[in-house]
């Protein structure tokens, strides 16, 4: 008798669970990079979308890379519906058949009436991935560590005599090779031309060699501010928003050097075989429309991918910090800048990373 009651309770629980699942048919899983960045997306995109549609979003974090997406697609068990990837990964994942194609012409018009294909800035739309924001790979330093001269140029990052201390860098060929060339005197416009040659790659690695023994490698975007705060490094490359937030909200002495910044788009993509493709598309259409993109800048200094959003960008959530000077797209910050060449990296990613990882291991 007792057992039967237990069984009934259990069956009831199972039934209740499956009912809950049925009630949440409009539920999607959105995966992004965590930290202040995900917070900005939750506030600007996810909450308004949930209010508007009544759907729910399960928000998850990852560390970038396409390994999880590939594993899900290959095993046929796709549990992510929308994932935030860099443009280059959006393109290579699309090449590898890991993402659904998205027809960008069906996205909503800009608030000023501009057609979507005209409203997005050049390079923001690819076959499978729609950009939300442009962020910058910059380097920053702890100003208390350099009481005299301050680093101002990308070459200063490689000058450990004048600016002693360890350097934080991301453990990947991308960004570092371009940075090394710019520090070695290659003009921003020529970086990818030079990097396409064997001599150019040799030159980049030779420049990296000069600081190799001082480099501390990071892999997650949250690490650079920690490395600076703990004093483990005096200078580090980082995503600009990751240094902005502690500098403004916690008054950390972090200073960003915009010279040699490298802009990259962050995009939304749908893993192939997503079980909630319609809802995922609706979320992407909503979140890449004019207002949500502009709203995101309240929480993190990343430039919206739509031209029509730019005039709407105002102040940080504290209500007093003007966001414009902190944006990668601010003309003052663009004097020596490159936009990451997605096509170059699709062609050379494997080759250069193989050499890079061998270089690290030696």
């Amino acid at each position, binding site marked *: 008798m007792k057992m039967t009651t237990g069984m009934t309770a259990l069956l009831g629980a199972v039934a209740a669970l499956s009912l809950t699942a049925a009630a949440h048919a409009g539920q999607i899983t959105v995966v992004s990079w965590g930290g202040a960045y995900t917070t900005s997306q939750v506030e600007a995109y996810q909450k308004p979308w949930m209010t508007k549609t009544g759907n729910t979003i399960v928000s998850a974090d990852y560390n970038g890379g396409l390994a999880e997406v590939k594993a899900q697609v290959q095993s046929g068990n796709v549990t992510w519906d929308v994932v935030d990837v860099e443009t280059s990964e959006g393109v290579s994942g*699309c*090449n*590898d058949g890991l993402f659904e194609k998205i027809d960008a012409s069906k996205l909503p018009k800009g608030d000023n009436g501009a057609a979507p294909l005209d409203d997005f800035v050049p390079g923001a739309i690819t076959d499978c991935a729609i950009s939300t924001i442009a962020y910058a790979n910059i380097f920053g330093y702890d100003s208390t560590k350099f009481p005299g001269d301050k680093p101002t140029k990308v070459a200063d990052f490689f000058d450990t005599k004048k600016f002693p201390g360890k350097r934080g860098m991301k453990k990947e060929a991308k960004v570092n090779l371009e940075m090394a060339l710019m520090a070695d005197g290659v003009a921003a416009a020529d970086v990818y031309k030079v990097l396409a040659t064997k001599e150019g790659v040799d030159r980049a690695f030779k420049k990296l060699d000069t600081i190799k023994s001082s480099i501390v*490698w990071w892999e997650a975007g949250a690490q650079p501010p920690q490395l600076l705060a703990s004093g*483990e490094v005096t200078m580090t490359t980082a995503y600009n928003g990751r240094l902005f937030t502690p500098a403004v909200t916690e008054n950390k002495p972090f200073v960003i050097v915009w010279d040699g910044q490298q802009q990259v788009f962050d995009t939304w993509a749908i893993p192939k075989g997503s079980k909630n493709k319609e809802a995922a598309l609706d979320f992407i259409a909503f979140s890449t429309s004019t207002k949500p993109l502009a709203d995101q800048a309240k929480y993190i200094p990343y430039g919206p991918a739509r031209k029509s959003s730019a005039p709407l960008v105002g102040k940080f959530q504290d209500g007093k910090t003007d966001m414009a000077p902190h944006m990668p797209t601010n003309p003052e910050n663009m004097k020596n800048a490159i936009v990451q060449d997605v096509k170059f990296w699709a062609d050379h990613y494997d080759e250069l990373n193989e050499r890079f990882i061998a270089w690290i291991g030696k």
Partner: protein
Amino acid sequence: MTEAVNRHALANRLARAERRGKIRAFLLVAPLLAFVILSFAVPILGLIGQAGYSDMVSTSMPKTATLLLQWDAKSPVTEELCASFVTEFKATKAIDPAMPSRIATFVNREYSGSLSKLKAVANATLAAPYCQALSDLNDEWSKLDIWHALKLVAPSFSPRYFLQAIDLRLNADGSIRAESDENAIHIALFGRTLMVAALVTLFCALLGFPVAFLLAQLPAKTSNLLMIVVLLPFWTSLLVRTTAWIALLQQNGVINDLLVALGVIADDNRPVMMYNMFATLVAMTHVLLPFMILPLYSVMKGIKPNFVRAARSLGATSFTAFWRIYFPLTIPGLGAGCLLVFILAIGYYITPALVGGQSGQLISNIIAFHMQKTLNWPLASAIGTLLLVGVLVLYWLYNRLVGIEKMKFA
């Protein structure tokens, strides 16, 4: 006569009962067996297969693949090959719209830069003569390099990823060349991994032996308390333990701060103890120590104190009694501990990734890099397979030298 019949029937009944028992035993193990096969053996075999087998090109472009395999990789590309390649490659869109770019990604690993050229072919409208049309599209098609890359990916079975895993590369004509100096790293890292694993095993043995000895000698009440101290790291997340070492060892970490405060070292001359080989060795030794202590302890607990007493009473010094009597008796535990620590250390990946910097990177970090970043799973599988084979060979050697049946694991 009847006795014989009876005996026969009895034997039958016994056999039947035994068989029933065996089936019941098998049924009890069956769920675990199925679980292990499904969740462990199948994926491992699948990944190993990926390293040497891919029929993407040979099934989607069968005629081209055959022509490429017949081609000697030296003479100019025939119009027949060009035509078959263009038609079949463009037709792969019918299998899957992403197929041309998937093939292009595959080819790009053999010849960097060919991805965009192949994608251009998939999107262009080309007409006969095809070889001319291709070189008009991009000059690269009139050179042999890109065709060499296509020839390399054409066969279903290919040893090229295994060769790459030992710093060799396959040429299109079937010969083998050494990997360029700047890209060769795998052999060196296999060597470093073995050395680190051996050192960690040695340190674990040196540190673990006295602890296990102490645990075995103390009265149960005290030793139970100490045992909890030994087991505590076991119950703590690996990440937490590794991060704790970062907090301790880094430039402005606890140990450096303490040494500076005590005046042992100057503030501007702090030793580098983090993000290098030293940190890898320290953190791995700490993490793996319980695997050494537990089997040692279980063996030492079973050694009768009478043996050593007898040796002493027969005139042995305390050292001789320990070395000639006690120590040999602990070999089964020491051997088991060494085997556990060594094999675990060979595959270690999170700890070196977090604290290793560049000098502390191990082969498993390369595997992870190719799994997560370059998505070159075949290469990652090939390196992983070699690692697995290496471990099995070492295990076999160990078994021959020490004898696995004598080990006591806990």
